[in-house]
């Protein structure tokens, strides 16, 4: 549980709750984003040797 004295900044109960919801949405978003970034880096990596070869 949160220690009372640490709450000198009012977190706002709604702002606490919304983080649970946002984190759930981000879990899904980042899952797909990571796949996208992985695919992109995969293609960039496979491109790289070609680039070097033309140097």
């Amino acid at each position: 549980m949160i220690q009372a004295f640490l709450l000198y900044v009012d977190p706002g109960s709604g702002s606490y709750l919304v983080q649970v919801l946002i984190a759930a949405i981000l879990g899904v978003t980042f899952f797909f984003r990571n796949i996208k970034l992985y695919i992109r880096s995969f293609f960039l990596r496979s491109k790289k040797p070609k680039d070097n070869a033309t140097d």
Partner: protein
Amino acid sequence: MLPTIIAHPSSFRDPSGFIFEKEGTIYRQVNVLFREHFDYFTNSGCYNHLVKNGLLIPHEQINQNLTGETTCYITLKPERIPFISYPYEWSFDMLKDAALLTLRLMKEALHFGMVLKDATPYNIQWYKGRLLFIDTLSFEKYEEVPWIAYRQFCESFLGPLLIMHYTKIPLQQLQMAWPDGIPLVVIKSLLPKRSRFSFYTYLHIYLHQKIAAQGHGRYKDIQKFSKQKLVSLISSLELLVNKLILNAKRSTWSDYYDEVSLRNSYLEEKKNIINRWLNRLETINTAADLGSNKGEFSRLLAAKGIHTIATDYDPYCINDLYTSIKVSHEKNIQPVIVDLANPSPSIGFNNAERSSFYNRLDADLVLALALIHHLAISKNIPLENIARIFHQTSRYLIIEFVPKEDVKIKLMLQQKKDIYSSYTEENFIASFSNFFSIEEKQIIPDSLRRLYLMKKIEA
């Protein structure tokens, strides 16, 4: 008996400790209440890591209870910041970098099992050419709960940045109206409707505001919020902040130097005269370049090792200066947005939490170049009043007098009636002579303008 020590007027909200001044030195007391978190912060290596990476202000531990209070656990002596500035005086990119610094600190702290318990721009200051976190007592142990400072971050960093990004207007002043952060409902109503189609803006502002408006009294039900979730939340904020830009609209003053440099050797001659005068002055450690534009003359002072506050009322010019300092890594220039006809007032509790601009300004030298006609003619401020203000702020004054025959004043007077019969060089000298002794005077070649070096008459 120890003398009574009063906490700094801005240091009363957090019960973990406070800042105070004793015999001209700044100290921070850590209270017994915060012992566990502070020890963890030090022993976990978090403090050393942040200081080593130039993210947090270093401090020295003093083995003495200077306040004599029983609540005192440890006393710290942090390095002193020469000039405190506030977020409503920062340009867009400076606030953006302060937001990114806060998020980075949060991520770095998480590696050590700690979090930031507050996220306010007032915890960040300009020091030696960069932004630095100054509140050593903001770090506490991570306890698997949502981020306590999330709303504060959204209201005091994200909100102002989003508003400026979407409206394309530098609206630093909003932060003065709401020093504790612009309420989410206000941010939402100032943003254009299309902003809700930005995914992360929707989450952190619109959804946040909607749930915050409904969810009273239920946060105690939340049992666990994993570190991974917290990192995702911070990363999404980082992705959003990184995308925000101040639309590069040109202001009236953006092209000033390009235009001015066309006027023969005016700028170069001005620099030569100032350089000569600077060489003969006694020690000058601090200076304020008032009406600095993009800081051409601030650079001249900074190159001599003088800590220079460059102020201008044009947020675009100050933003340009800030971004160029970021590239050049100049350590002695501090860019600040200040309108001299309406400088930052004292605000906050008891009008003492955030000090006024002139209360903070104490420079060895003030540079007021191509400025006086803007105050006297554009703003109708009497010369005597201008002289009095400069007298309060500095030991030396280098001021440029722009006569009425100057092409710039002629342009100004095309738009308004000439009611400025008292704006003459004789009156200028008479007004300033009440407060300063005139040490040097020189005509700037290729112009009608004159430079004066003045020394304050001590009361």
